[in-house]
C-alpha cells in the first residue's frame, strides 16, 4: 500500500511544486489542503500516514494538538522529530517545513518524503529570491534611466556624461548608484 501524505500549505503554487517533487520521489497518495479552518475534520477523512505542513501556516497549532491527544485521527501521531535525527529536524525547520507521522511508520519511509519536501521548499525559496532580485534590478534600471534623462535635460549633457556624473557622486559618497538616481528623481519631482 502506498504511503498517504497530506500537504498543508496556504501557498497553492508551492503545494503543487511539492506534490510534483513527491511524485518524482515515489509512489504516494497525496492530498493537498490550503490554509483553512476545519482542518481536523478533513484530515480525519484523509487519514494520512504523514502530514507535511508549511511553517507559515497558522494551522500548525491545530495540527499539533491533534498530534498530542487522543485525536480524531484515530491513529496516534508523533512529530517526525521523535524518530529522526537532530540535523534533520534543524534543516527541515530552517527550510520552513514540519512533518507529523503516524506512530510506528518506519524511518526509511519518512526520510525520502521529508527530503523531497525540503528540496522543493528550497527550490521554491531560491526561485523567489531570484525573481525578487530580477524585479529589484529592473526597478533600479528604470530609476537610473529616469535620473539620466533628468540630468541630460537640466545639464544639457549627453547620456554617457550623465551616467558618469551619477557614478562619481555615488563613489564619492560611498552609496549605491540607484540611491543617487532615486535622490535625483525625488528632487526633480519636488522641484517640479
Amino acid at each position, binding site marked *: 500500500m502506498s504511503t498517504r501524505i497530506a500537504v498543508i500549505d496556504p501557498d497553492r503554487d508551492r503545494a503543487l511544486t511539492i506534490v510534483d517533487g513527491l511524485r518524482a520521489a515515489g509512489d504516494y497518495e497525496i492530498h493537498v489542503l490550503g490554509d483553512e*479552518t476545519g482542518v481536523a475534520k478533513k484530515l480525519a477523512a484523509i487519514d494520512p500516514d504523514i502530514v507535511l505542513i508549511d*511553517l507559515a501556516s497558522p494551522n500548525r*497549532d491545530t495540527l*499539533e494538538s491533534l498530534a498530542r491527544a487522543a485525536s480524531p485521527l484515530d491513529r496516534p501521531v508523533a512529530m517526525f522529530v521523535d524518530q529522526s535525527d537532530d540535523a534533520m529536524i*534543524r534543516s527541515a525547520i*530552517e527550510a520552513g517545513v514540519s512533518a507529523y507521522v503516524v506512530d510506528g511508520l518506519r524511518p526509511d519511509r519518512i526520510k525520502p518524503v521529508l527530503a523531497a519536501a525540503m528540496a522543493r521548499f528550497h527550490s521554491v525559496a531560491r526561485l523567489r529570491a531570484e525573481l525578487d532580485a530580477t524585479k529589484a534590478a529592473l526597478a533600479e534600471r528604470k530609476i537610473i534611466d529616469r535620473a539620466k534623462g533628468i540630468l541630460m535635460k537640466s545639464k544639457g549633457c549627453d547620456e554617457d556624461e550623465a551616467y558618469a556624473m551619477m557614478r562619481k557622486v555615488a563613489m564619492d559618497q560611498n552609496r549605491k548608484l540607484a540611491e543617487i538616481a532615486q535622490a535625483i528623481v525625488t528632487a526633480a519631482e519636488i522641484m517640479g
Partner: protein
Amino acid sequence: MSRRRDHEHFTCGFIPLTDCATLAAAHEFGFAAEEGVALELVRETSWSNIRDKMAVGLFDVAHMLAPMPIAMSLGLSSFPARVAAPFVLSVNGNMIGVSSHIAKRLAAADRLLGLDAAAAAEALRSALDGAPLRIGAPWTFSMHTLLVEYWLSASGFDLEAQTSTSVVPPAFMTEALAAGELDLFCVGEPWGSMAVEHGAGSILLPATEIWAFAPEKVLGVREAELDARPDAVEALIRALYRAARWAAKSEHRGAVAEMLTRAGYVDAPTEVVERALRGAIFATPGGDGRHAPRMIELFDGAATFPWRSQAQWIAWALGRRRGVDGLSSAAAAAVWRPDIYRRALERVGAPMPTASSKLEGSLAEATEVGAVGGSLVLGPDRFFDGAIFEPRDGVR
C-alpha cells in the same frame, strides 16, 4: 537589518499580539540599543514554530505563553528543551467570548456582559441546556486553556464529560465561530475584539474576572544563552524593564498602539489595539462598553516580576489533567528565574519585592508592600471563587 558589532545580538520570535508591546517598544524606541542590545524581532505564525525554533536554537529568546517554558522544560510538549523565564512580558489580556448563537440565548435572558465569572458560568450552563460545551483556545499549554478549565471546573462543570477543547489559531477564531464549530472561546487581544467587530461572537467576560492577576506572556530564554552570556541576558532584561515602564504609561498608549499596528507587529486597526491597552471592551459591535481594569498589564503591580508561585500555580493547573506531580512543581518553579531578574535590575535601583513567592489570590485590593529600594503596589490578584493558592499546599 544591520548588525552593530559592539551590540549583543538576540534573535527573538514573537506572535503578532498586543502583548508583544514591550518587546516591540524595546526595539523601536531605543531601549535595547541603550543597553547595548540588538533585538532582532522575527514574526511567527504559530506557537509550535516558536517552540521548535527555540528548541533547535534558531531563536535565542522568544515571546512565549507563560506555561510554555514550563511545559518544554518538564518534557510535557513535544520537542523538550531547557528554557528559562526570567521576565514576565504581560499580565492578563485574555477575553472570553461566546458564539452568536449562545450570545442570543444569553441576551434573551438579559445576561451578557457585566456578569461576574460565577454568574457567567451559571448563565452559560442554562444557555447550553445540557449540550456539551465546545471551547476554542489558541494552544494547549496556555493560560487561555488553564484559566477556562479552572473557571469551569470550580463552577461545577465536569471537564471530561461536559466540555471539549480544540486548538484554533486566533486568526481563525472568527471563522470557526461563524461556522458554528465553537460555543466558547478564549483568546488574547486584539482577537477577542476582532471577533466582536466581525459580528462572529460576543465578549462574555475578561479573563481578569477569573484571576485578577494572571501571568500571560513571558520572555523565554534558552538555557544555553544563560550559560554562554549571562551579562547580555541581564542587559536585555534591563532594556525590557525600561521599555515596559515606558509603554505602560497612559500617555504613551497612543504611541504604542500606533507602533504595533503601523510597523507590522499586530494586524488590527490602531483604534482597536489602543482600546485594549486602555482596558475598554465592547461586548457586541457598537454595543455596550465596559471598562476592565488591568485588561493588559505590562508593568504596574510588579507585573514584570517572575513570581515562583505563579509558575507553581501553572504546574498545579497543568497537573490537574496532564499529569504533573508534586515533584515537578518544584521543577516548574525552577524554570522561572527571579534570581536573574534581581541580578539584572537591582543595581539600577528598581524596587524589588523582598520575597520571590507569594500567596496567589490573597489581595482583594491594590496593596502597598515593602520592597528593597522603594515600595511596590501589588494586587488585586483575586480568583473568582475566593481561593488562595499557597505553593506548598496547592489551592485551599
